[in-house]
């Protein structure tokens, strides 16, 4: 491997990594925002994302135009997650559920979605969504990206900016942050906890659907794409698990690391890279990159 090879691999790895990493970052934002406001580590994140891909596929197959498919998919996935929070999680919370119960309830949702998708038989013939952007090559430095890659990255960044604006300037966004900081105090100043939690879940569903719409022109939609959630989890942990900017940085880091591992070590090692990232982060710096100070539990 010559020096110019290394330089080419580095450029290519970083640029493609930023593109896929931006999608991981979106999913990590969905995980972190739900965890911050409801204490629920959402183990169904991957399946919710997958549901987005399948809903879009079914709508397209039914002859709905692309312009209508996008909003319909977002609404449908948002409705599923909002309903899940309203019907299932609200009940689990009120019957004194704690971490283990939350995890198992979301795993229940994961199983149900996976089973429903399999039941429809759509998983048997993997398909991709047609791309809106051509996959013409665009050279950047020595590296080559497709226009699709760039569109994914730009769209993801736009969504992140919108999320940031929502959390910073809108009443709903501020209420969500308040619930994340101190639910009881938020309740006292008149914020309806159940409503905010439902909205956060809906938002996480919409973000997952966006991520699905962005990445599915590039990958085949199969029940297995739910595994992408592992990368999103790795991203959230690297970023600190309670920090939204951390989730973004974590997503980009994981995307780049994944690509560099693939280029420099072997494609076989890509699968295990996120787990090593999770383990190393938790052992070396359990609070993640932007997780704030380590808290001490009081008795």
């Amino acid at each position, binding site marked *: 491997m010559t020096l110019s090879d290394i330089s080419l691999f580095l450029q290519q790895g970083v640029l493609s990594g930023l593109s896929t990493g931006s999608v991981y970052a979106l999913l990590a934002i969905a995980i972190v925002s739900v*965890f911050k406001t409801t*204490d629920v*580590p959402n183990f169904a994140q991957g399946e919710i994302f997958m549901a987005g891909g399948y809903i879009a596929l079914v709508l397209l197959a039914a002859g709905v135009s692309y312009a209508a498919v996008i909003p319909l998919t977002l609404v449908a996935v948002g409705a599923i997650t909002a309903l899940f929070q309203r019907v*299932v999680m609200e*009940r*689990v*919370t*009120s*019957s*004194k*559920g*704690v*971490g*283990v*119960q*939350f*995890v*198992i*309830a979301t*795993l*229940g*949702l*994961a*199983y*149900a*979605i*996976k*089973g*429903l*998708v*399999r*039941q429809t038989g759509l998983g048997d013939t993997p398909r991709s969504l047609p791309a809106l952007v051509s996959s013409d090559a665009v050279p950047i430095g020595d590296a080559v990206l497709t226009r699709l890659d760039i569109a994914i990255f730009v769209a993801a960044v736009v969504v992140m900016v919108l999320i940031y604006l929502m959390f910073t300037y809108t009443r709903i966004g501020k209420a969500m942050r308040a619930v994340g900081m*101190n*639910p*009881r105090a938020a*309740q006292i100043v008149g914020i309806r*906890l159940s409503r905010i939690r439902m909205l956060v879940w809906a938002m996480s569903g919409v973000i997952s659907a966006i991520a699905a719409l962005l990445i599915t022109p590039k990958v085949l939609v199969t029940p297995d794409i739910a595994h992408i959630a*592992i990368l999103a*989890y790795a991203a959230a*942990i690297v970023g600190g*698990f309670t920090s939204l900017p951390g989730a973004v940085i974590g997503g980009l880091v994981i995307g780049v690391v994944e690509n560099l591992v693939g280029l420099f070590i072997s494609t*076989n090692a890509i*699968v*295990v890279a*996120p*787990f*090593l990232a*999770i*383990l190393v982060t*938790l*052992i070396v710096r*359990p*609070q993640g990159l932007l*997780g704030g100070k*380590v*808290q*001490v*539990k009081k*008795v």
Partner: protein
Amino acid sequence: MKKVTLDHVALLAAFAVLCVLPFVATGYVLYVVNLLMVFVVLALGMHVVIGECGQFALSHTAFYGIGIYTAGLINATWHPPFVVSIIAGGLLSAAIGYLIGFLALRMRDIYLALATFAFGEAMQWVFLNWEGVTGGSNGMRLQPADFFGLKLTNDLQAYPFVIALTALMLWLTVAISRSQFGSALRAVRESDVAATAMGINARAMKQAAFAISGAFAGVAGGMYTLFVSFIHPESLGFQTTILVLTMVVVGGIGSVRGAVAGAIFFGIISELLRQALSLQEIIYGAILMGFMMFKPRGLFADRKRRVARPVPQDGLGGGAMKGSRA
């Protein structure tokens, strides 16, 4: 004289059924019973680390796999009596469990869950890619186990040994649960700070729980090699950990009879629905959500022994997974 409880009656009835079974049941039924026993031991192992010690670990399948491969490889190489290979698998799993226990000293709750989850997935990757030892994605044939010259070639021959091992592990779990050591584990579960203040070595207790849990999973893996002749890493993934976690939680966290009942209940369900995978997943998902909504403490909630927790003040229902990572 000791009081005869429902537990004794249930145990006696189970013993009677298990004695009669080999004379009336078909090979398939015996296979399912053998498999259920493996699940019982797996669930008991997870019960020790999650139920007794309160450490939320999701790496159980890794230890199960280590047990299977260790026992299988030792059996294929030296053909010792199967007891030797099972003990070796259990010990290796216990040793690795002890090492993984170091994670529990640094983190808790969701962070521990995710770190152990990552370890479990990394181990599956090792099983899949260490082709020289595990056969990689081709799987590995398991030689018939040997019992002092007698080859165990079918489910019927393995059955008595599987039952005996299960009984032994069940007795061990109850013994641990009733011992002072068990009380120490539960003290750590309720609050490791308070436990330390009482003079309990919380760090040692956590690592011991991980080691014991690993040993149970390793023995379960060894039991598996007695009646199954093929292992593929595909079956050693997160799914299996979730299945066992479900058994423990739906049965009732912290209760031995809950772990056993959960293992049998879900073992039968997953076997009944094996043919209809999608239906299995839907039903399974519905059961999980339903239980968490209406019976979150499981079928056999351990009410008697559970120490009162402080009532959560934030309206979120407990803080077992919230915040602290130190």
